[in-house]
């Protein structure tokens, strides 16, 4: 059985009659020790779906799902108190901007020890020792003196290490990293990713890695999920997904990489933007931006279907040569 099983997760905002679906019937599963990479443009619902997983979507947002089971327990149908025992202990999350993720009023030590206190108990001395271990583990130089530092005294990279230490404090079985390096310096980015992957490998923890960085997921992830406007567009094993994309959107994303534009005058782009609350097309959400779109795409929404071992939401999935199949005319 998979560690995390998500079936038709939907997150809606706005009024009941005219809701905006930030996440639209997304299904996926994560196995023990697996790395799942989620990619997609800004506004594609990556962060919102992980917040829903953590139970951090507030009113007026509405979260529904056929099932949202973690280790056999249905997260959506348990009392809040019980769910909080899982959140932060078995499922932990790392956020985008480390500089704003730490409370400016408390020391590093206090913020890490707090998570330990809630879930593990023990006395203050034990918690302090564990905190020191954690800081060592995440590669903080001179951890003893950093224990009593306040967040404003730390650099971005250092803060992200603290945030990671905080997240892994209770040995979670699933770690959700929501663009953990977006706010960091390029040189620090690689270090943080290496750290996350090392922690993941050492502890057999499952990792959901949300990112814009296609190169990173293709290297690090076991499976990849491509999202667009709240919908799952393509997902499958990382091996070969980028070598032979089946969805036109995945293909377009890859073509937009600067390294693939050699020999062209300009970088290639996907024209337009992700549809927002008021300009959602009736048919396929990508139709206005897709170079292969037909009248059918404009009129009708495709469903997710299995195509050579991948889940693809498209009427005309691509073949090995990157050409749409099944198109007449």
């Amino acid at each position, binding site marked *: 059985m998979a560690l995390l099983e998500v079936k038709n997760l939907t997150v809606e905002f706005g009024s009941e009659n005219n809701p905006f679906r930030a996440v639209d019937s997304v299904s996926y599963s994560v196995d023990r020790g697996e790395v799942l990479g989620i990619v997609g443009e800004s506004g594609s619902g990556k962060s919102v779906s992980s917040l829903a997983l953590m139970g951090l979507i507030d009113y007026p947002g509405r979260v529904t799902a056929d099932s949202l089971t973690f280790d056999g327990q249905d997260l959506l149908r348990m009392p809040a108190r019980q769910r909080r*025992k899982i959140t932060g202990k078995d499922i932990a999350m790392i*956020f985008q901007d480390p500089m704003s993720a730490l409370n400016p009023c408390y020391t590093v030590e206090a913020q890490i020890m707090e998570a330990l206190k809630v879930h593990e108990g023990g006395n203050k001395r034990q918690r302090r020792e564990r905190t020191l271990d954690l800081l060592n583990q995440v590669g903080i130089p001179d951890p003893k003196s950093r224990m009593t530092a306040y967040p*404003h005294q730390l650099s971005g990279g250092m803060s992200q290490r603290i*945030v990671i230490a*905080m997240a892994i404090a209770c040995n979670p079985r699933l770690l959700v990293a929501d663009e953990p390096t977006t706010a960091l310096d390029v040189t620090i980015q690689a270090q943080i990713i290496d750290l996350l992957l090392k922690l993941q490998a050492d502890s057999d923890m499952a990792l959901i890695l949300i990112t814009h960085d296609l190169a990173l997921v293709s290297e690090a992830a076991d499976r990849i999920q491509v999202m667009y406007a709240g919908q799952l567009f393509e997902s499958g094993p990382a091996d070969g997904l980028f070598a032979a994309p089946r969805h036109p959107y995945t293909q377009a994303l890859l073509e937009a990489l600067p390294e693939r534009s050699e020999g062209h005058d300009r970088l290639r782009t996907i024209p337009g933007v992700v549809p927002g609350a008021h300009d959602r097309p009736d048919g396929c959400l990508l139709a206005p931006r897709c170079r292969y779109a037909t009248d059918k795409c404009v009129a009708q929404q495709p469903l997710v279907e299995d195509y050579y071992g991948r889940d693809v939401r498209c009427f005309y999935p691509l073949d090995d040569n990157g050409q749409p199949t099944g198109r007449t005319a």
Partner: protein
Amino acid sequence: MLGFFFRRLGDIIPTFFGVTLLVFFLIRLIPGDPILMMAGERGVDAARYAQLKAQYGFDQPLIMQYFHYLLGVFQGDLGKSFVTKKPVLEEFLTLFPATVELGVVAILFALVVGLPLGVIAAVRRGGIFDYTTMTVSLAGYSMPIFWWATMLIMFFSVFLGWTPVSGRLSVLYFIEPTTGFMLIDTLLSDQKGAFLDAVEHLILPAIALGTIPMAVIARMTRSSMLEVLREEYIRVARAKGLSPAKVVIVHALRNALIPVVTVIGLQVSVLVAGAILTETIFSWPGIGKWIVEAVSRRDYPTIQGGILLIAMMIMMVNLMVDLTYSVINPRIRHTR
């Protein structure tokens, strides 16, 4: 930290001179001659008038009078009241505890009621509690103290008869002032029921005086909390699996308190202004009532000394507020 303290202390010096200058010249702009005021309806003949004028130094140029005054202030001499002939400082010190007692209880009332109201309104934003609290606090904020105090007296003292109408203590009790704070003095004395009587006397004036600060604190706490609750670290705290109460009180409230503390500091001057009205209405023997009487009698030394002392007190409170920031906010503590 110590450097910060002394730098702030240094800021007080120009303000001090400004206050002496303003008070000294402004009261002399008010029509009315203090000597004629003292003489009353009988009047005074020209020779005696000239003699008194020389005695009080009014025959000298204003500038000279000001320097004489300033010289006295530097020697700790605020002059003697024209009316009572007692040193201003001495009178101030006997009356001051009454005002402090009233002010402290009023601000405690404002905090104890205002803070939780603001926090709950922010957490339940958009709900009935939020709207009710904010409407009521807007009403509280807009209410003139003299009207509100009168209404309180009419309802609680006259109609329901729950509390005494005015004063600090019933005539039944006689308390020798040791600290000047009635609540403490009555506790120290062995007269039964005196403490409770003092409390009963204090409730209404404290509520009347504390209503505006309470409304301001509630509104400020709410808006500051709303801002903080949107911060990423609140989300992180929730992601740790902390209970909602812990997230709000431990993580949000402390950050939200910084602007609230500023407002509390500013409310001290509002309290002094309010105390003048409240003390007059409730016959509370404090400095507010004292200064009002001094103004109507053109008692220059009392007005000058009283206002200077109040100004110094407000500056001290603001200094304390600044020091409180650094306790709440580590970012200020570590800046040099």
